[in-house]
């Protein structure tokens, strides 16, 4: 953002931009409080909102966000990003960072188990588990750091199949969702196969691969910064496409996280804010190259993929053109409607997982229970 500010104010010296950095949870609290109180004072001109929450904000606070249809060329962004910020045909945001996912792995450890990079392309989760078992046999290391109550992987699996917790009309789609059933079964299979190091919370999860206790991590592109933080592992990493689910329609590309810019309606700086986003975030290819190098932030601006920074070989990943690969996968991410209740659904399912792991209830029953509870909770 600082880079964007510098670029914009160079051409528009009269504009003053103030950037306020905030943790995600903090921002949510503040934004909800201000929007709910219905006062315009003190609202920022631009906010960055997590993609999973986009529909929720747009539909809970009608009129609070500016319609950007036609003011920004949305065709230049990854398709799935534009879908999630559209309400009734109107597009409200400017897509920013991508959460395109990958199967990041330690080349050295997988080689010890007899796997070459070619063997890891476009695999299924079943294959992934098999590899994990062999890695454990050969190296004694766990395949994954795994939070038993973390729904991140489930989201990756679901989106790879173009499915979500809800159907296209926003109705709960849990008990009879084949992709979800397969995802929950995969969760249980991963736990049963004893190929994981159980972790609780972000720090432990990151520590698992930083310490070299685990051989891989399957998650969004934003993890690269944390992987690279452990400089001693340079050259040992590589990235393959995300494993797919064993259901029809599942592809080897998915997403976790990511966020986009939104402009608030009714603030003084609205028009300048839109112009700013348009000139920098929706036009400036060079800008995206620069923030990738300096910040490790991968945008969802498609033309950026052909830039120098994106096509550079990365020494940390043994010379792999990481961002070229990720950009290619990004184009294939199925677009799904996250709907209004992603976090509620996540909680409803994960709350039953301890019983699924222990075998106390079947996957089918767990999903039935989750669907019922969720319907009660959101009143549908």
């Amino acid at each position, binding site marked *: 953002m600082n880079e964007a500010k510098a670029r914009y104010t160079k051409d528009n010296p009269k504009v003053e931009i*103030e950037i*306020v*950095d905030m943790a995600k949870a*903090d921002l949510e*609290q*503040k934004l909800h*409080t*201000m929007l*709910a*109180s*219905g*006062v315009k*004072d*003190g609202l*920022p001109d631009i906010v960055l909102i997590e993609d999973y929450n986009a529909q929720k904000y747009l539909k809970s606070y009608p009129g609070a966000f500016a319609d950007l249809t036609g003011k920004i060329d949305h065709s230049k962004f990854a398709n799935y990003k534009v879908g999630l910020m559209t309400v009734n045909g109107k597009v409200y945001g400017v897509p920013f960072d991508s959460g395109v996912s990958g199967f990041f792995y330690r080349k050295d450890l997988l080689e010890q188990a007899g796997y070459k990079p070619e063997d890891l392309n476009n695999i299924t989760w079943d294959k992934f588990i098999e590899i994990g078992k062999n890695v454990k046999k050969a190296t004694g290391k766990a395949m994954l750091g795994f939070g038993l109550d973390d729904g991140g992987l489930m989201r990756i699996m679901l989106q790879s199949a173009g499915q979500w917790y809800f159907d296209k009309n926003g109705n709960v789609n849990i008990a009879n969702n084949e992709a979800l059933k397969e995802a929950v079964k995969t969760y249980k299979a991963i736990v049963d196969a004893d190929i994981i190091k159980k972790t609780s919370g972000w*720090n432990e999860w*990151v*520590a698992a691969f*930083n*310490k070299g206790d685990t051989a891989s991590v399957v998650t969004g592109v934003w993890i690269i910064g944390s992987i690279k*933080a*452990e400089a001693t592992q340079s050259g040992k990493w590589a990235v393959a496409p995300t494993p797919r689910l064993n259901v029809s329609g599942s592809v080897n590309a998915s997403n976790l996280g990511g966020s986009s810019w939104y402009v608030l309606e009714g603030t003084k700086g609205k028009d300048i804010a839109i112009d700013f986003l348009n000139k920098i975030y929706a036009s400036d290819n060079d800008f995206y190259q620069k923030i990738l190098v300096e910040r490790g932030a991968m945008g969802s601006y498609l033309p950026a993929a052909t830039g120098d920074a994106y096509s550079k070989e990365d020494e940390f990943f043994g010379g792999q053109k990481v961002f070229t690969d990720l950009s290619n996968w990004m184009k294939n991410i199925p677009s799904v409607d996250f709907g209004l209740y992603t976090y509620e659904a996540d909680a409803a399912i994960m709350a039953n997982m301890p019983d699924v792991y222990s075998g106390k209830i079947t996957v089918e029953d767990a999903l039935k229970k989750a669907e019922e509870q969720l319907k009660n909770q959101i009143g549908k």
Partner: protein
Amino acid sequence: MKKIRISRILIYLFLIVMFIISVFPFYWMIVGMTNSPVDVIKGKMTFGNHLLNNAKILFSQYDVKRIFFNSIKISVLTVIGSLAISSMAAYGFEFYPSKVREKTYAVILLSMMVPFAALMIPLFRLIVKLKLLNTHAGLILTSLASVFIIFFFRQSFKSFPKEIIQAARVDGAGEFKIFTSIVVPSMKSTYAAAAIYSFMTSWNAYLWPLIILQTDKQKQ
């Protein structure tokens, strides 16, 4: 005699264990100051050599001096104001018994039980209407009358002998004089404890300042 000595040793042992458990995280924080972020996440427990580097990052990314003095300013003003106002109120409730005031007190106590999350949105609207958004006054005013501190003072005043006040009245001392020159001085340890708690609450306050201070300049 021997029995006493053994129990003494046990008591000290207990204290030392409690002390170590309590202080250990502090030690860890200080160690953390000298290590790189990766080492901290990995759980390194020994001193490292990243202290200067960490300090550099801290001072280059944040205006530490301003943050610190702003926090001090807000906290000190809140503590002084809240101690004066709350102890006076507690004194009024405890030493001037009346049915109406007792009911007022009950309502006030009740208000303490409402979780803050439920009040935040209306309070925010109020602050905007009073034009206190983005001001330190908005922060201080809302925390001056602390029910918690009033409650603590009142409970502490209960052990203050009422006869002393009666005697002072007979001697012709004014009501405020009795409060400031007899009651306050003899309740020093209560004031000290209340000051610690008030300061802590204000110093650690996070959510509310986050909401009503908009720009980094105000926050720091």
